[in-house]
């Protein structure tokens, strides 16, 4: 009999509430019972309030058990866990969890689904299809697709990505760079981390496409040092990509050279600012540079540089795969596509909700979040991190749209939503 596939996330939130101990216990109990299992450490689906969320695959379908503890494992096995047996922790099919199915998973569609450290697993779910397609389309058409999709920087500023790429593509220089800012998350956001831990090759593919589009041969990921597990996973994923010929020279025989170096931040809160990040990548104190010159003209080491945030770059592969029209058909007004909203703080069902722009805070907080964790009324909601605003309960029906938020004196920023009840 083939080994039964079980899944335990190796993702910061799940691990922070016991996922590693559960993985050890599952392996131990399976061995003691003589059961043949394959233990896969997937990323998180983003239904964080259910973590640790453990799955078993039965007849090709994945059955979820939520809020599992290591102490539950032996009991779950006795209840027939490996056949998807009934147990107090059993939720049902992971693909039928309402929180997850009612989303527009464009960028995060592989998170939770795949083994983040397996190139094969990534390939089976469209991984690297987009860079292969990009090679066929040519650099110019790739930039047009990103521009036509209306993709804007997800780091908070909302600058059109296509325009940034075109500027760097048009600059003539002996060397150009792609710098991925994985340190610009407002506090109380975690979408970058979830993506890098659950689908690191998606970011690698986004950077490959950016590099190909603007003729850059080198990329950097600047990761905040507060994410030690993310660093481990990203470093392994970069090694995997290099070993399988998806980074390095003459990638898959295309003639295109590109490699990525992973850099760690060092606890400076300023280095999320893009020019401060460039200084830090050059080995200096992260002091903000005067603009102009813009980084697209004189960026890293004085060379033209595309600086994009993690989610921006990770949104690109599916724009190439599915087409810019489909992306642009999502969202409202000048806010095209999706944003990965993050429900956090005093909320019953915290986690990641990727939805098209235009949804309201009230829908997110009530329909997905289920209200406050304390059960008390919502007093205020902070959106956009420390630079954002506290939005009073009366304004929760404002649609999430960059410009609509500016009109009420707020900003969407990274899409982090922190709920406070009336006791604070």
């Amino acid at each position, binding site marked *: 009999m083939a080994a039964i596939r079980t899944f335990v996330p190796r993702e910061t939130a799940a691990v*922070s509430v016991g996922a590693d101990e559960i993985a050890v216990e599952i392996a131990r109990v399976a061995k003691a019972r003589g059961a043949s299992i394959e233990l896969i450490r997937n990323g998180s689906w983003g239904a*964080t309030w259910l973590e640790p969320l453990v799955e078993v695959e039965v007849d090709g379908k994945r059955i979820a058990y939520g809020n599992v503890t290591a102490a539950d494992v032996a009991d779950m096995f006795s209840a027939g866990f490996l056949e998807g047996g009934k147990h107090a922790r059993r939720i049902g099919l992971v693909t039928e969890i309402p929180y997850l199915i009612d989303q527009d998973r464009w960028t995060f569609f592989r998170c939770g689904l795949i083994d983040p450290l397996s190139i094969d697993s990534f390939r089976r779910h469209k991984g690297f299809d987009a860079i292969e397609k990009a090679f066929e389309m040519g650099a110019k058409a790739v930039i047009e697709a990103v521009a036509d999709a209306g993709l804007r920087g997800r780091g908070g500023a909302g600058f059109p990505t296509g325009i940034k790429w075109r500027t760097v593509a048009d600059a003539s220089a002996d060397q150009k760079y792609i710098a991925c800012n994985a340190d610009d998350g407002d*506090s109380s956001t975690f979408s970058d981390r979830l993506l890098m831990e659950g689908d690191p090759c998606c970011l690698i593919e986004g950077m490959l496409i950016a590099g190909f589009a603007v003729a850059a041969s080198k990329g950097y990921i600047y990761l905040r040092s507060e994410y030690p*597990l993310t660093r481990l996973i990203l470093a392994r994923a970069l090694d995997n990509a290099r070993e399988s010929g998806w980074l390095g020279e003459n990638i898959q025989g295309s003639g295109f050279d590109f490699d990525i170096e992973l850099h760690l931040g060092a606890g400076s809160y300023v280095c999320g600012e893009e020019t401060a990040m460039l200084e830090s990548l050059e080995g200096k104190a992260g002091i903000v540079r005067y603009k102009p010159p813009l980084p697209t003209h004189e960026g890293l080491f004085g060379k033209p540089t595309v600086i994009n945030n993690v989610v921006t770059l990770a949104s690109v592969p599916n724009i190439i795969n599915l087409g810019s029209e489909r992306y642009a058909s999502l969202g409202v007004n000048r806010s095209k596509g999706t944003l990965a909203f993050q429900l*956090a703080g005093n909320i019953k069902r915290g986690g990641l909700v990727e939805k098209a722009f235009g949804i309201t805070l009230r829908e997110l907080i009530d329909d997905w979040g289920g209200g406050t964790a304390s059960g008390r009324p919502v007093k205020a909601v902070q959106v956009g991190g420390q630079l954002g605003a506290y939005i009073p309960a009366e304004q929760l029906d404002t649609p999430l749209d960059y410009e609509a938020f500016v009109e009420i004196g707020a900003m969407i920023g990274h899409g*982090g939503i*922190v709920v406070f009840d009336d006791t604070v």
Partner: protein
Amino acid sequence: MLMTTIGYDKDAADNIIDEFGARPEMLVQILQAFVQRFAWIPEEAIRHLAEKLNRSRADVHGVVSYYHDFRTRPPGKHVVRICQAEACQSMGSRSLTEHASNSLGVDMHDTKNDITLEPVYCLGNCACSPAIMIDNKTYGRVSHERFDQLVGAMRQSD
């Protein structure tokens, strides 16, 4: 100044610097590796780096003092960090901080009884607030009781 040389191993440091190809632009990365190896950056390390990377001591000093992670005093055997960002505040991180300080007998930003207690501003674990980090490992949904259990386990590991 005996203190400043404790734990610093010049050969190990040389190996780290060489791993980064002694590239001056890798200074932040080398310092980060030093912190992981030695837990802090002694004065001797600054002199050593300046020499190996061909940068002035003032220059290296400026970088070390700029970044929060590059501590210039040795931390305790264990470092306990409590997140103070918004999501954790909404779930009682202030009261958790007070509890931590009282139960460990250490003030914030201080080291006592082998423990350094520090604030941190976001561990990216905002849907499992309040969050803390003990010796580079993140924990979520940390009630006062769970905090005591985690500290107990940390002490047992000694």
